[in-house]
């Protein structure tokens, strides 16, 4: 019953959005605010209607209504309550509905915001949002209807995909979807600004905080996805350059480039058409990413089953891209810069280069991820490009970005002074030399090769950027202390409080550097081995001793699988001065293999021990004679925890940048001088 209500609510949401788009444009044309307001209200209605739709699926999940095909495919009588609720995004149909729900939330809050000086943008913001959301809702109804029913309902469902029964996987999709759908707000503002032929940065300022929200969700989604892959996929890593991971990385790269170049427009009135192009590319890549994952064009751990969505998506993409291109090309005259970029050796110049590197890496990831589709279409032969390739061609570009993070803060706007920059980078260079030397002595010498030398240099680069960023905090604090006569802690706290955007941003940079150091540790110093061992025997690897204590079956978490669990004792095989002696106990670990009969699926779940700086990750690969001997794959992952820590710091940085300042109260005083500049 409620399920049917949900279905009709979703249809109603679609109709309401089509109305909102139409009436808003008509209202703008006739300059009739009542029509525009009607469109605004109609677009806001999509959220409650989509919520009713989602409630319909939730009701069916909770009531064991296996007549609903979707429910039968993702839930079962044995599925616990929590996973029934999260089963809404457990497979294609439901997760697309959920995607629409999230997008409708963003639309709702964007519609409900106080529209003041940016009121002229409202009708086209409404129309853009309504059309995009309407497309996704229409797509759900036409080719992925989660409300579809069986003629003869089965007695029980298949249960949730075992891979998704992990906290990381429960949070990861909503967060990532929120990141994707969140960009609809800046995109709509961008389109509205183009359509109304505005040349100022109103759209940037009005949507800046929304861009940040979308960005942080995307960042979180990527990091959580990495964590999930690390825990569940049993391969020791966190980033596999899997097609679908790449597809969410491309919008992140473009969106991050946009966050930076937007500053140039706000500060200097430059890069206008570049910003518009970047925003359109970002949102275009989001739709592309969704199309790739949803239509099953690329196979990957994430891909949903084959579906009929391909052509529909292709049509929408072509339509959207031509619309964007049309508005962009016909408004190029409006998007002239207020200022000129005189020389590369300036803050703007570094931003431009940084943007170029972001876009260059995004293009490479995009093109090479799409390569399998292209090669298959043209030659029938599917050529996939794996991690070694991306590590070789994209990761170096990321390190260029790390270096730029350490150069940009030293550059003055418009024209930097070479001597000043050189003088101020001394601290950073000193830190770089020191850290690289220390690293070389401590780690590289133990395991000397070309790559470990490169790693020492790269760590030096990270140290340089880290030092420069920390110096920025120190310099700002000192400046406040002299100017305002504050003591150091107060000055630092107020520094963040009064200039959140700048110092929040630098804090995010700290996170990026920490993440990069983690990636160096895992990438250059990580190792793995596969060993067969008899019961109660011991094998050693990279300074650890692993004693195999036996194999046993244990109850499975959801009683729809069989779990075989191995027990291993991990001790230190050699001393690691000054902290550990040989023979020290490191941990007891229980890697296990879960066999799901219904889904015909086996998952290999690793167990983890070690220290913060060096993770020991073990999976049970095979066993003989009921456990008389077993084969284990051991991964030693140095500094991998720094990757997660870096991710956390980035999110903290976001909060520092986002906290407290309400957009409208800040935008207003800034508006007056900005408008003056635009009209000069």
């Amino acid at each position, binding site marked *: 019953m409620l399920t049917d209500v949900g279905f009709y609510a979703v249809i109603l949401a679609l109709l309401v959005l089509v109305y909102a788009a139409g009436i808003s444009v008509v209202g703008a044309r006739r300059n009739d605010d009542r029509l525009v307001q009607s469109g605004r209200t109609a677009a806001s209605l999509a959220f409650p209607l989509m919520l009713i739709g989602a409630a319909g699926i939730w009701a069916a999940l909770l009531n064991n209504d296996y007549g609903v095909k979707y429910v039968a495919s993702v839930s079962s009588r044995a599925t616990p309550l929590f996973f029934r609720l999260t089963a809404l995004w457990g497979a294609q149909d439901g997760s697309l509905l959920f995607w629409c729900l999230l997008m409708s939330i963003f639309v709702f809050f964007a519609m409900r915001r106080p529209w003041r000086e940016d009121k002229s943008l409202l009708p086209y913001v409404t129309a853009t949002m309504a059309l995009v959301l309407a497309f996704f809702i229409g797509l759900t109804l036409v080719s992925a209807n989660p409300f579809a029913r069986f003629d003869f309902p089965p007695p029980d469902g298949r249960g949730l995909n075992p891979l998704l029964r992990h906290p990381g996987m429960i949070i990861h999709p909503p967060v990532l979807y929120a990141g994707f759908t969140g960009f609809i707000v800046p995109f709509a503002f961008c389109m509205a600004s183009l359509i109304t032929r505005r040349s100022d940065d109103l759209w940037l300022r009005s949507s800046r905080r929304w861009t940040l929200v979308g960005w942080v969700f995307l960042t979180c989604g990527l990091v959580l996805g990495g964590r999930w892959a690390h825990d569940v996929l049993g391969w020791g890593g966190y980033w596999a350059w899997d097609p679908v991971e790449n597809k969410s990385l491309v919008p992140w790269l473009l969106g991050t480039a946009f966050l930076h170049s937007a500053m140039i427009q706000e500060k200097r009135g430059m890069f206008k058409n570049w910003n518009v192009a970047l925003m359109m590319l970002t949102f275009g890549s989001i739709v592309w990413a969704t199309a790739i994952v949803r239509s099953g064009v690329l196979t990957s751990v994430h891909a949903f089953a084959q579906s009929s969505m391909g052509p529909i998506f292709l049509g929408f993409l072509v339509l959207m891209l031509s619309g964007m291109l049309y508005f962009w090309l016909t408004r190029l005259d409006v998007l002239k810069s207020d200022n*000129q970029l*005189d020389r*590369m050796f300036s803050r703007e110049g570094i931003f*431009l*280069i940084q943007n170029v590197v972001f876009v260059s890496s995004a293009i490479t990831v995009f093109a090479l991820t799409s390569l399998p589709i292209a090669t298959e279409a043209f030659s029938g032969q*599917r050529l996939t490009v794996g991690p070694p390739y991306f590590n070789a061609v994209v990761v170096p570009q990321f390190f260029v970005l790390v270096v730029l993070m350490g150069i940009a803060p030293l550059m003055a706007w418009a024209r930097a002074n070479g001597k000043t920059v050189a*003088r101020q980078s001394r601290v950073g260079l000193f830190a770089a030399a020191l850290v690289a030397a220390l690293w070389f002595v401590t780690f590289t010498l133990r395991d000397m090769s070309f*790559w470990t030398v490169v790693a020492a240099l790269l760590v030096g680069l990270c140290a340089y950027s880290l030092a420069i960023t920390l110096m920025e905090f120190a*310099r700002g604090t000192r400046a406040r202390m002299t100017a305002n006569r504050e003591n150091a802690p107060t000055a630092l706290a107020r520094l963040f409080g009064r200039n959140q955007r700048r110092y929040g941003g630098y804090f995010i940079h700290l996170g990026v550097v920490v993440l990069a150091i983690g990636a160096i540790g895992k990438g250059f110093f990580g190792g793995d081995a*596969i060993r067969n061992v008899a019961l109660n025997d011991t094998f050693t690897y990279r300074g650890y001793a692993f004693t195999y204590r036996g194999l046993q079956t244990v109850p499975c978490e959801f009683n729809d699988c069989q779990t075989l669990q191995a027990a291993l004792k991990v001790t230190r095989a050699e001393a690691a001065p000054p902290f550990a002696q040989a023979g020290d106990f490191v941990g007891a670990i229980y890697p296990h293999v879960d066999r799901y009969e219904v889904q015909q699926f086996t998952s290999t779940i690793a167990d983890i021990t070690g220290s913060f700086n060096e993770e020991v990750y073990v999976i049970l690969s095979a066993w003989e004679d009921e456990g008389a001997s077993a084969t284990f794959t051991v991964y030693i992952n140095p500094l991998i925890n720094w990757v997660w820590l870096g991710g956390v710091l980035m999110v903290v940085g976001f909060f520092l940048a986002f906290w407290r300042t309400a957009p409208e109260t800040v935008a207003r005083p800034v508006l007056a001088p900005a408008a003056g500049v635009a009209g000069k």
Partner: protein
Amino acid sequence: MSGRPGRAARFILGALVLFLGVLLAARPTQAQDGSLEEQTREIAKHLNCPTCAGRNLADCPTDTCAQWKGEISTQLKAGRSAAQVTEYFIARFGPGVLQEPPREGGFLLAWIFPIVVFVGLIAAAFYVVRNSSRRGAPTAPAAATAADPYAVELERQVREEA
């Protein structure tokens, strides 16, 4: 008008491009020793698995992959070298079986592409900046939109002459 700083910027960029080139040119060397399992794993790391997208053959736990790994072990036991085993898989399943495109023939395009994009975009950026600075007179430095005295102080420190 572009004095030393201009040259410095070009130098920095040149160094970055060079650095990128070095990283691209060099290859990791893998030690080839140890047990049959280790050798098998080393070969499997460079191959794609048909059933685990995104993960290499060595890390994929499925049955199909177990068979492939069995095939590698069998061939190694028969005395074939790692290169021969890899050749066997390429001959049987095509170059798509490799984790990275071969560095030869048409596949080189995949390797050249990122470098062309990177260098091309940077060159384009320089071109645009040079053109725009030729066209117009140098513009006034950004006005410090300072809400706080310390922001002015900061800006002063950043552009301070040595």
